[in-house]
């Protein structure tokens, strides 16, 4: 499991014995108006949300904007948070759906039967117009991101969830609302496409 994430539990899993999540206290503090508590929530969860957003859009500035929208949505929907479930998977589920909706609005298909390469080329970070992205994604990292951006959105998200969050095919399916076998196929196709794009993986 990636060290970025303290919790990689099933997104809809209840706490053992149906008890309150350790995050319930934090959420209660935010709901009572504690601004510092919201800052704590963001500190705990922003790395995973940023990694998902960045890997899906490939531009640092756009990823940060998406993170802002995700946390605004989290803040406004805290009333719907179920205190018996872990907060991390709930936040990351909101992030996944928000990012996919963002891509859908831009006309990027979730799934495509065409071979890898249907991802829009304009998504690939260009060092000339995004120096921040260039700093983040040097050499091999840039090559990896370029290969990732050529995957259909569903495959890209499945691969990101597998390697950023360490989710299983079943968990990816539940997170994205697709059957387990679809999630498994997306990971398989994505990994094969990445193998072809990065033949000298180390």
């Amino acid at each position, binding site marked *: 499991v990636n060290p970025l994430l303290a919790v990689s539990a099933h997104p809809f899993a209840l706490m053992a014995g149906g008890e309150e999540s350790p995050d319930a206290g934090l959420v209660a503090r935010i709901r009572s108006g504690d601004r510092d508590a919201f800052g704590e929530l963001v500190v705990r969860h922003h790395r995973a949300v940023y990694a998902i957003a960045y890997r899906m859009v490939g531009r640092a500035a756009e990823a940060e904007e998406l993170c802002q929208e995700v946390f605004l949505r989290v803040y406004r929907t805290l009333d719907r948070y179920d205190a018996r479930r872990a907060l991390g998977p709930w936040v990351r589920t909101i992030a996944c759906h928000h990012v996919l909706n963002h891509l859908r609005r831009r006309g990027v298909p979730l799934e495509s039967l065409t071979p890898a390469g249907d991802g829009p080329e304009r998504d690939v970070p260009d060092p000339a117009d995004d120096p921040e992205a260039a700093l983040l994604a040097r050499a091999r990292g840039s090559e990896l991101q370029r290969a990732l951006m050529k995957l259909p959105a569903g495959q890209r998200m499945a691969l990101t969830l597998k390697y950023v969050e360490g989710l299983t095919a079943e968990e990816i399916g539940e997170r994205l609302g697709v059957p387990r076998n679809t999630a498994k196929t997306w990971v398989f196709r994505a990994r094969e496409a990445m193998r072809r794009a*990065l033949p000298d993986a180390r």
Partner: protein
Amino acid sequence: MRVDGCDEALPLLHDRLDGDLSPEAAAALDAHLAGCSACAARLAGLAALDRELARDLPVPSPAGLAARLADGVLAAEGRERSRRRLWVPVLAGAGALAVLAALASWGLDSPWFASVAPRLETPVSSLTVTADDLLADLTSIGSSLGPAAVAIAIGLAALQAVGTAWLLGPRRRESR
């Protein structure tokens, strides 16, 4: 179980990486790998890719991102609340006007208005109003207020209270 050819072996290579192979499938794959150097090399390549993806996909976030996000969200929420609060006096005024309009519309048809109407045609200079007249008017208004008018007034007041509570409700989140 038996693996016939490299095409059949390929998904099993991925399943092995994911730890998703049954003992029977694992044995069949091992038997295939023992005699197929191409698949053995592909498995090694996939394992290297697996390590690289696990190491490099979790991209580090930019410095100071958490603080920017938290500040940005709270600022955006504050602006939204200010915008909503602008509607409070508008809603309050509209509610008050609605109550007055409902009562006035009913009042023009009431027995009280019928009793007062002749006096409205009397010249002001010759109009005399005694304390008894005022008392009679108030009594008449009170007795004329039917349950319908009271219900309308209460209903509008309740609607206004709910609307105002909704507009002001989220303000508690900026109390600190």
